[in-house]
């Protein structure tokens, strides 16, 4: 098979891959961009996520990425020329505090967030119940709330990016698996199921699947896959505003603008790349859902799905150029969807210029796992 060539090859058409492709196009350098994905549209992490986006993190770096990303989501309809928009329901995230200790922690977070410009605040139980009257009042002594957080449709987000980058001339192909990366002179050749592609630069955005692609090049990535499971109800009106979080249970509840309620329960499970459902999940997920929103016990659950998310030792992304010249990596650590606007921008800069002055790039490098400079995020759900 003859070898195709491109300037920049992006592997993975999820939120990171497509956002980076869009930002590369925005720079208007004339670089030819090709994006390859092994699956079909939205087949992996982005298409399976709970769809929440939040500024309420515990670390300045995370907050910085999300402040930038949420500003982009607010403007995405215009910036991506996507009439109808991406269903950004910006009505906040409410993190329920079950006791005074937790509320104290939330209070400290809110102070730190406020100092960084995040408009979060503490709600009394009465204020929380006013926003979500269906909430079980016995579950909270208060809550942390940020009105800038919310939910975006992952499918519309990917579709908006996909159409925009195709309009800008990028080549995006689904159903094409990259099986191997090889160094060849100053370029990199990607062997794929549809023939080889040679590129000056390659950006790998395959999340937890990245280690198997990079290992043959001598690059060892501390990334694992952990199954994560969710369910969705039939549509119900009226729609309550905020996304709900019970951090001690890994529970996230989000009512989509069309009325369906998504519930995700993240729990510690052994490393596993399969997306098979777990037999014990539905009683757990439905149990926490009903306990949190007893008035919705009658709602039918229509679907329950599972998909692995990426896990790193400090649950922070790995971003930047690898030891192989021209080879770049962007792995999210289970927040690729919500951070994709900002990470796409900084990765575009790194790929085009070899550098970016974005603080996240310096911090979220691969070397930190050797030096031990981990950056643990306290507010992982």
């Amino acid at each position: 098979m003859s070898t195709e060539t491109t300037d920049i090859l992006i592997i993975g058409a999820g939120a990171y891959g497509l956002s980076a492709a869009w930002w590369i196009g925005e720079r208007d350098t004339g670089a030819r961009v090709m994006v390859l994905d092994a699956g079909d549209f939205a087949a992996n992490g982005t298409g399976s996520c709970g769809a929440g986006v939040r500024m309420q993190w515990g670390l300045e770096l995370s907050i910085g990425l999300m402040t930038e990303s949420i500003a982009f989501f607010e403007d995405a309809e215009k910036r991506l020329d996507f009439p109808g928009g991406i269903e950004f329901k910006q009505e906040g995230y409410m993190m329920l505090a079950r006791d005074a200790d937790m509320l104290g922690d939330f209070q400290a977070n809110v102070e730190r967030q406020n100092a960084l410009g995040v408009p979060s605040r503490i709600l009394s139980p009465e204020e929380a119940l006013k926003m979500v009257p269906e909430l079980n009042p016995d579950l909270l002594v208060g809550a942390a709330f940020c009105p800038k957080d919310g939910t975006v449709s992952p499918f519309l987000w990917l579709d908006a990016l996909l159409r925009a980058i195709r309009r800008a001339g990028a080549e995006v192909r689904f159903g094409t698996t990259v099986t191997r990366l090889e160094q060849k002179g100053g370029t990199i050749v990607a062997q794929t199921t549809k023939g080889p592609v040679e590129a000056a630069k390659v950006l790998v955005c395959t999340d937890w699947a990245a280690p198997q692609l990079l290992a043959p090049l001598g690059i060892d990535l501390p990334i694992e896959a952990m199954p994560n499971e969710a369910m969705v109800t039939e549509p119900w009106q009226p729609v309550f505003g905020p996304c709900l979080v019970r951090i001690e249970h890994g529970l996230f509840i989000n009512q989509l603008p069309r009325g369906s309620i998504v519930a995700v329960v993240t729990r510690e499970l052994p490393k596993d790349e399969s997306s098979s459902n777990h037999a014990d999940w539905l009683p757990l997920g439905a149990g926490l859902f009903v306990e949190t929103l007893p008035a919705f016990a009658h709602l039918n659950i229509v679907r329950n799905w599972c998909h692995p998310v990426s896990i790193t030792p400090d649950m922070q992304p790995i971003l930047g150029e690898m030891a192989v010249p021209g080879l770049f990596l962007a792995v999210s650590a289970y927040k690729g969807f919500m951070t994709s606007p900002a990470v796409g921008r900084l990765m575009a800069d790194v790929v085009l210029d070899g550098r970016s002055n974005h603080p996240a790039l310096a911090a979220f490098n691969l070397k930190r796992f050797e030096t031990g400079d981990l950056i643990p995020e306290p507010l992982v759900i």
Partner: protein
Amino acid sequence: MTAPRIVVVGAGPAGIMAAREAKRRGAAVTLIDEALRPGGQIYRQGDAALASSGVGLPEELAHKRTVLEAFAEVAEAAEAVDYHSGATAYAVFPGPQLHVALADSSRVFEADALILATGVGERAVPFPGWTLPGVLYAGGVQAIMKAHGVRAGDRVAVVGAGPLIIAVAAQLAEAGAEIACVTLLTPLRVMARRPLGLWAGRGVVREGMAYLRQLRRAGAPVLEGWVPVHAEGAPAVESLCVARHDGAGRPLMGSERRFDVDMVAMNFGFTANSELARMAGAEVRFDSVRGGWVPVRNEFGATAVPGVFVAGDGAALRGAFVAAAEGRIVGAAAVLTAGGKGTAELHQELAAEFTERRSHQAFQDALRPTLDLPSGVWSWATDDTVVCRCEGITQGRLRQAVDEGHVTVNGIKRNTRAGMGWCGGRTCLASVAALAAQGQAGPPAETPPMRPRPLARPVPAGILARREP
């Protein structure tokens, strides 16, 4: 040796006969059924207080009695089958184990063998106006007559493909409806290509002729080689336009006829309820006439997944007589396999059942061409016709997705939301697959179905939250 635990899903002809056969052979049998009374869709029983269960002709009613007597035998035995009515089997996990929603809680049934006899659902071909109130599935119209003694319309058009159309039209006429028209995609005489098959099904053919005579007496026009063009009315259906088609399913302009109606009954074949089998990990093959993606099985109904069997129409549409014979084969094979018997012994022991199934199967083969859908039928929907009813996704939006390069069923689903709603894609899957096939320039066989995930049927959160230990 303890008795093998056999769990059967579905109390239609296949499930009931499988349960009886397994019970007779000493198994501990559990029978799970969605309906409140046994019989399945085909032998649906009405409310006991209504004298409505007589819908049907003598041979059909005799078979119904046989099946229901088999149910009575196992339900009233000293050590009866563990029968759960009004119960929804919503997931299968390795084991095999079956997850079931009962009235107030959910329960896991561990099985040595799981027999899925889940039947079929009706297949729609979308045309403009098919989502108007008053446009119903023909089988659904029949079910309303059988279960509730209610005639769902007064002046009715019955449109579709295959013999069910004739039966429903005649039963509606019998119930006092005026039949405005009956249209069949393919003339029933194509069955004559297989005279031996017709002979094997002569009882059923005789009853079909009786239905046709009944329609003729009622003055109902039976238009063969005709298709629906559009239904109109506000807020509910008031008229249906039909036309002759070109042989490939596309209506011939200029041949239209319009009928004033207050109900349209429609059926274009069936889709196998294969969700549970696919969830269990069974491979599927595509058979457009016999139910779309159907589980791959051996002659005893066993899939390649240990302990998972499929019987009846849910494995491949062949009607109640084949289903009942096959139920006996699969019920016996599940017990005998659990007892370590090999293929040769099974063949010897089940020779009579195999002969019976073969004989009924021959008639089904003769029927087959009446249910074949030519590719042109998928062009009836115009760009503004809603194809996915749950999410309100139009044919135009689906075409756009295909034009933009989304040519797999799952890719189209995630790009458009078609198939993400209440019905889990059962209604629109055939349409989406046909469009995907056009995008790939290949038959739907090459397009894998939507990934099977729980729940096979919606279940309230409160019931899932209460799992019995």
